[in-house]
């Protein structure tokens, strides 16, 4: 082709029209799905939250903010909200710290990298059903491995999942085991992106392993830690599968998550409108947590 072609960036009317056409053509499949399965449900759910719509199709009359007023004075809603926040707090800290420890140890370049990756990441690959089955059985008061282990230290058996004081702890333990692998991989990738020259320079200056860790590794991990904490909080707030399944679908006041309550009011209690209202209260909580998170990281960044 001739190298003397006029600069192609110059946009003639025709060219731009073609570009616009092709842009929309390439976007359309995603946009249709985006509108049908995300935008429309958001809007329609918001509308439903102002009605007394039932699952069976009955009702559907406009009730104004009645559902929201009911939700805000509903002790079960607040209990579920509390459980969800409590779980988020209990799970986020170990899920970030354990992942960091794992990644730093693996990144030390110890032999057998694939084996470490496999050990820590395998649980993340398992379905929540599988996780729940394994841990229900480990936490079984009579035949479970958890109590067998405690017995070796002379500790009396605990009715892990049956006892309202311990069932959330049991769910947190299972969850940390299940999902830490993803955070571990994020940390590992970040560690492997730190330029080796930085360590070389530090070593020449006589910095030892610990010094290098505190002065190079940890500061470099700041941004990824902020990201992991945010992703983890958002993930933990969505607690449902494992809590629901580990208790065999039974509703417990100490483990019922907000999503479980949305499910129960909508699909067990048949109150779609009320269920939708609780969804939006939950969505508001997510946005508030997100804003707090954004403020905290911005302040730290300055």
């Amino acid at each position, binding site marked *: 082709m001739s190298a003397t072609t006029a600069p192609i960036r110059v946009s003639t009317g025709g060219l731009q029209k073609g570009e616009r056409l092709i842009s929309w053509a390439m976007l359309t499949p995603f946009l249709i799905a*985006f509108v049908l399965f995300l935008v429309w*449900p958001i809007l329609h759910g918001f509308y439903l939250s102002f009605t007394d719509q039932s699952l069976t199709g009955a009702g559907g009359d406009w009730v104004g903010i009645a559902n929201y007023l009911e939700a805000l004075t509903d002790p079960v809603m607040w209990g579920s909200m509390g459980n969800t926040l409590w779980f988020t707090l209990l799970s986020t800290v170990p899920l970030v710290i354990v992942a960091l420890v794992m990644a730093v140890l693996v990144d030390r370049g110890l032999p057998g990298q694939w084996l470490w990756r496999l050990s820590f990441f395998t649980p993340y690959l398992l379905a929540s059903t*599988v996780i729940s089955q394994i841990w229900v059985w480990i936490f079984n008061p009579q035949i479970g491995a958890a109590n067998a282990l405690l017995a070796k230290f002379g500790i009396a058996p605990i009715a892990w999942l049956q006892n309202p004081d311990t069932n959330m702890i049991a769910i947190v333990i299972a969850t940390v085991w299940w999902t830490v692998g993803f955070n571990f991989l*994020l940390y590992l990738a970040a560690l492997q992106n730190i330029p080796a020259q930085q360590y070389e320079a530090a070593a020449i200056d006589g910095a030892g392993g610990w010094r290098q860790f505190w002065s190079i590794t940890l500061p470099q991990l700041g941004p990824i830690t902020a990201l992991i904490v945010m992703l983890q909080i*958002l993930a933990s707030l969505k607690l449902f599968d494992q809590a629901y399944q580990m208790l065999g679908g039974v509703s417990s006041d100490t483990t019922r998550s907000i999503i479980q309550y949305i499910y129960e009011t909508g699909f067990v209690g048949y109150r779609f409108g009320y269920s939708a209202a609780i969804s939006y209260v939950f969505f508001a909580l997510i946005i508030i947590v*997100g804003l707090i998170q954004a403020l905290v990281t911005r302040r730290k960044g300055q």
Partner: protein
Amino acid sequence: MSTTTLTQSGAKLDLQRTRKPGSSPFSPLRIAAFIVLLLLAVGWLLPFLWAVATAFKTENDAASTNPSWIGEHGVTIDAFTSILSQGNVWIWALNSLWTSVAVTLITLAISALAAYVFARLEFPGRRLLYYAVLASIVVPPQVLIIPLFYEMLAFNLVDTHMGLILPQVVAPTMVFILTRFFKAIPIELEEAARIDGASRLRIFWSIVLPLSRPILASVAIFVFIGAWNNFLWPFLVINDTTLMTLPVGLQTVISAYGVQYAQVMAQAVLASVPLIVVFLIFQKQIVKGIATTGLGGQ
């Protein structure tokens, strides 16, 4: 190999590095780290290995109040044969496989096309649209179950695989990751092709996509894992036993089995094998993918 493609796109990750420079191979710190790591890794695998061991026990041994790795009555595959002879497990596995593959392919196709437009093409409203997609990342899909179920009722898609698949194909996070990656590809590669008269679609197909193979692979793997393990939506939208996916099907029979732990664990193991195989094959891709997405970068 994929290393070359990665280098071309300017994001190379050194997975071959065996140790951090500056630390000697046998320093006390390294040996201590190795021991801690070994304990941690074994501890982490233990619950799963325990489940595997139990799947090979007789039901009596599995329910023993004095648990041990190998039961009194020795090793048996009874639990596996008993489950596999029940027919439904195979149907559920096939349902899981085909619906997860469908979700993955559709998500990948529509997200990549959209991401390319957001990364490279100019038209009025593009920015606004992109920010709308970005903002939707914060919407928890679980909040949408009520209106989505309603929508599926209206479309007559409740209790169908279409109803199961379609709502899962919208993945704003994946669009975001792909857009970032496409933006990082040197524009010169595409300009040269445009001078040669290649169309946008042709450039996308024969230049951008081949360069993006590693990122497409890791996006595909994460979408696949998510779809394979998804519980809430399949649980709500499917009632017909023969249409269920593995996680939902397994959940429904647990109560039916009561305390038959060996069978329950054998099911758990069977359901996990496909994903562990996928991970073993693609594990380098996954770590590389996370690094190149910028998720792992600074």
